[in-house]
């Protein structure tokens, strides 16, 4: 089933176009790795999909709506918020439900139980009252992943989820994503091509324009044409892998 479709989307900031006439279709159960050089437009693409910036031209249609809102779970880059903000793990996870209700509505008991179950699943239940600032990078990502997943999204978007986290967590995260992919489509932005080829099904390479590869094989030609960054070796629980022909 088609979830998201971008047609001829051009977007950017002020006078500068970062994305030029890009096309992308995301179907349910897709697992797309988004790669590209810095400044190539990876984050801009995510922001356009999330509705944080409006495209200058082109259309975006999202069919995965629930209760009139886009059913998208979003895991932003780790450094987008103030780590000293006085907010507990539980509150952060519950904030993922904000769009489910009208502004003045309080979450129900079922929501709280669901949040606790999710927190427990990621091994963070002990920390549910801990302020977000007292967690390690990996623990924080677990919490933010819970926040992204709490409303059972049909599309999960992750922006560089493994920055600032240890390699052990990286392995855990990706096997969790493979599981989640059975229920939802995933769009993953990463610098780490080793990870990308291990887990994703298809690849979108962005450098101003978008080039879609309907497989997860990375060829020399692809890297040369799109100037994609490469991290050759991965560590930890993820199998080590060196790409062919560089």
């Amino acid at each position: 089933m088609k979830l998201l479709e971008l047609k001829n989307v051009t977007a950017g900031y002020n006078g500068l176009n970062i994305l030029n006439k890009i096309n992308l279709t995301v179907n349910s159960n897709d697992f797309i790795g988004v790669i590209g050089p810095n400044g190539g437009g990876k984050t801009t693409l995510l922001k356009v999909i999330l509705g944080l910036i409006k495209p200058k031209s082109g259309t975006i249609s999202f069919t995965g709506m629930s209760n009139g809102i886009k059913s998208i779970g979003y895991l932003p880059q780790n450094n987008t918020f103030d780590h000293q903000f006085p907010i507990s793990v539980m509150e952060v996870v519950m904030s993922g439900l904000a769009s489910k209700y009208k502004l003045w509505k309080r979450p129900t008991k079922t929501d709280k139980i669901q949040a606790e179950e999710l927190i427990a699943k990621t091994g963070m239940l002990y920390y549910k009252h801990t302020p977000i600032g007292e967690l390690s990078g990996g623990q924080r990502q677990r919490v933010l992943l819970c926040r992204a997943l709490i409303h059972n999204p049909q599309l999960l978007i992750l922006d560089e989820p493994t920055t600032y986290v240890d390699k052990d967590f990286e392995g855990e995260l990706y096997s969790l994503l493979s599981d989640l992919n059975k229920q939802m489509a995933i769009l993953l932005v990463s610098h780490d091509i080793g990870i990308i080829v291990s887990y994703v099904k298809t690849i979108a390479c962005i450098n101003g324009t978008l080039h879609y590869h309907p497989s997860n094989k990375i060829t020399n030609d692809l890297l040369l044409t799109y100037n994609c960054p490469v991290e050759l070796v991965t560590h930890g629980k993820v199998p080590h892998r060196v790409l062919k022909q560089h």
Partner: protein
Amino acid sequence: MNQLIELFEYQFFVNALIGTLLASIIAGFIGTYIVSRKIVFISDGITHASFGGIGIAYFFGFNPFMGALLFGIVTAFGIEWAQKKTNIREDSAIAVLWSVGMAIGIIFVFLTPGYTPNLMSFLFGNILSITSFDLIIMGGLTLFITSLFLIFYRPILYSAFDPEFAKALGLPVSLIRYILMISIAITVVVCIKIAGIILVMSLFTIPHIIANIYTKEFKTIIWLSMIFAFLGVIGGLIISYYADLPSGATIIIILVALWGILKGVSKFV
């Protein structure tokens, strides 16, 4: 003790007491928001810029409070707008608005012929000068801020913590921020009577810092800040009355002393 009870026979003291209670409630909500969002400097800029309105009001002979309110709100909008729409760095924008407001105020006060009554109480605060009119304004504001936070607690918290994520969820983040900025402007202007333009920001920050000794949860910080703000202001009010000291400055010293003592105690307990 009898002396203390006698104080309640004076209307100005009763006014000060009610004012203290209301100001503590407002300071608990707004102070927690300001400190958590790290916008103390912005809020202080609004406070100082409001002096421009006070100067103009003196010159043209209307209520200085209204002048301050108008300038405060315009500055709050100016900062929020400049932040989003222009390339001016936020701290520079605040510093400019801060000093321009003060400069306008100073020039108009200078141009005003004769004596400018209550000028010192605007600069340094005088809790005993709170009038019944002030109390009505404070009461209205307390009701508004309390309802705002009780009804929209979650959207306020979420958009302060991670505005981009909140926006992606479809929360009206800009609207919430504008409403809060205006609330901050009104709050600081209303509380100027208590601690003065120069010192009022401490009324919003020190109780939060004290509350932080015990908790790092937004909601609990709000309630604890209210209690500590009340203790500080009431202590300052009584001590300043008996020791014949300026109330605003005494309140701040009491609050800092309270922080020092509780911080010290927390190290041993």
